């Protein structure tokens, strides 16, 4: 090969990482099914652990679905950068002319497409199981779609900070949970306030603003953290 470049086009790597991770996920298809199953199972646990009368369930439904979506996202975070770190792909990301920000963004997008989005789409089924009142379905799906995207972004920062640790699952939880809290509160309130007849517009607008901010801040923070982790 002759030496010398005609200029690296930013974005090539972005597309390649997107394609690579989507292909990997497609090869292990069960990975997409698993967060869903976790979500389903833990919602099923609920009536087993607590009194399963309709009224009680309906009161706690929006909060519970949101909490379980949060936990399902959390469970899948650890593997976000783990394999890339262990096999040295991360070093290659850093040593590429492509800005690390874009690489992180590609990985977050794949994570959300394979975790958050399916969760949001299946949530109405769980709503039925927990007898969520009729007005709550659309707000539930929409708030989950935006909310899981924010949680994937925040989670990317947490995963990047903990990727060089031995047993990171729980440190990750500690770091990420307090940041998830506002998302959870706004999200579950959006659903319950629209069930109560107050509309969901305000909550969704808040979530949208949070998403915009997370998009700006989190991949940068994650990229910084990855650089630190790589030279352990």
């Amino acid at each position, binding site marked *: *090969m*002759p*030496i*010398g*470049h005609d*200029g*690296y086009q930013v974005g*090539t*790597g972005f*597309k*390649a*990482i997107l*394609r*690579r991770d989507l*292909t*990997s996920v497609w*090869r*292990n298809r069960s990975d997409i099914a698993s967060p869903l199953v976790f979500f389903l199972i833990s919602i099923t646990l609920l009536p087993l652990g607590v009194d399963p009368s309709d009224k009680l369930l309906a009161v706690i439904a929006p909060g519970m679905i949101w909490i379980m979506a949060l936990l399902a996202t959390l469970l899948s975070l650890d593997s976000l950068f783990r*394999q*890339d770190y*262990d*096999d*040295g*792909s991360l*070093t*290659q*990301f*850093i*040593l*590429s*002319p*492509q*800005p690390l920000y874009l690489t992180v963004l590609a990985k977050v997008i794949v994570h959300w497409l394979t975790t958050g989005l399916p969760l949001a789409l299946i949530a109405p089924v769980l709503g039925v199981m927990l007898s969520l009142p009729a007005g709550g379905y659309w707000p539930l799906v929409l708030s989950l779609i935006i909310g899981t995207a924010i949680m994937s972004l925040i989670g990317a920062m947490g995963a990047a900070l903990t990727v060089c640790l031995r047993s990171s699952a729980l440190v990750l939880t500690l770091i990420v949970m307090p940041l998830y809290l506002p998302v959870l509160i706004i999200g579950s309130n959006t659903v319950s306030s629209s069930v109560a007849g107050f509309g969901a517009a305000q909550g969704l607008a808040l979530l949208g603003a949070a998403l915009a901010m997370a998009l700006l801040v989190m991949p940068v923070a994650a990229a910084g953290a990855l650089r630190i982790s*790589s*030279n352990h």
Partner: protein
Amino acid sequence: MSEPLLTLNNLSCERDSRTLFSGVHYSCPPGTLLQIVGFNGAGKTTLLHTVAGLLPAACGDVRWRGRPIAQQRQAFYQDLLYLGHQVPVKPQLSVRENLLWLGALNTPATEAAIAAALVEVDLAGFEDSPCYALSAGQKRRVLLAQLYLSRAALWILDEPFTAIDKSGVLKLEAAMARHATNGGVVLFTSHQPLAMAEFTTLDLSAFQLSEQPSEEAI
């Protein structure tokens, strides 16, 4: 042509605030084939990491085409191919798919180029095998195929001969020599005796301890 591509400028490296070596001066004009030698734990990997900008230097700096790399990361990384101890190859993807994404990070590769490179590393016919089904040496050969795909001027290879069989080692040495004659720079480490004729060595032991007192005197 005599202007150096890569310059190690009074480089010192630390690990856990213990100085491994200090005062390394070296300039690599185009055509340099440089082996870093030293016993286990001398700091060869640390040096290569520092040259690649993965670790901060304790003192001194690394220059590429005359400018410190910290000031021109993107341009420098366009010129760099780094193969370390680890094997960044996804087990569930095929050999071709792996080379595609690895290439996209630096020099996007065409299908035809990949097929040709796989012939060079004796993996023809394995294009579509998933990488988990490869042996230790075959996995490393997938990485080495990048040498035939990349257009980077600087190759940094940390123990590239690991797990490679005899005929593979000969071919690899030839590729490294060819890169140097083409005007590139190769930095590598290895503990194996080599058949190559022309390469220079940089012995890290020369920069240890003896240099350290002079540091404290400053």
